[in-house]
């Protein structure tokens, strides 16, 4: 089974801190994604990556950046954490092209981040 692992299940950070959320997948997937999940809003795409060192902005990239130095690892960075970034963060990965429609995405278990 494909496994997507997020390094932290819960995090508490202070306003202004630089925060790193790590995600690792073990099935050689080309695509990786970072979503933010908030009640009543579903999942919203922050950033995604189709290849190493490649990144694309999603729907809500402001206040975030990403890094993909290796194929299996995709990091989300909050440059200066703010209280409105308190949320659940989900990482996902997928195969490419038509296979996405067959298999969908594989998600990690999420990191619940609280910024105080």
């Amino acid at each position, binding site marked *: 089974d494909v496994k997507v692992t997020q390094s932290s299940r819960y995090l508490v950070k202070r306003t202004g801190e630089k925060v790193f959320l790590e995600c690792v997948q073990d099935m050689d997937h080309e695509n990786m*994604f970072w979503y933010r999940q908030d009640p*009543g*809003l*579903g*999942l*919203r*795409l922050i950033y*995604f990556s189709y290849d190493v060192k490649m990144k694309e902005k*999603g729907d809500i990239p402001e206040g975030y950046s990403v890094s993909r130095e290796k194929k299996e690892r995709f990091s989300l960075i909050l440059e200066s954490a703010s209280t409105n970034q308190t949320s*659940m963060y*989900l990482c*996902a990965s*997928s195969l*490419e*092209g*038509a296979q*996405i*429609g*067959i*298999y*969908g*995405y594989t*998600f*990690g*278990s*999420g990191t619940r981040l609280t910024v105080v």
Partner: protein
Amino acid sequence: AQTVTQSQPEMSVQEAETVTLSCTYDTSENNYYLFWYKQPPSRQMILVIRQEAYKQQNATENRFSVNFQKAAKSFSLKISDSQLGDTAMYFCAFMNLRGQNFVFGPGTRLSVLP
């Protein structure tokens, strides 16, 4: 841009009964994929069922089936013989054929009552 709407924020059903979760979407594309994902308290998102828009036959996976009405842009999920383990958030999601991004609905919280 595509949008996905789930009009039922919360639902409950008695164990062993049947429940239907609603989903509507808006798109100008003719071919696409639709998915239902389940997120139990463990928070792991699990793919429940998928439908290809160019297939008229409704998808089924064991106790889970969909009612796909392409003209109405409706994609409801029916859960038969509900079990306690079905308690979860359920997300409807749309994906275009390029597979670049899921568009998720806001979710429906389903509680299965003993």
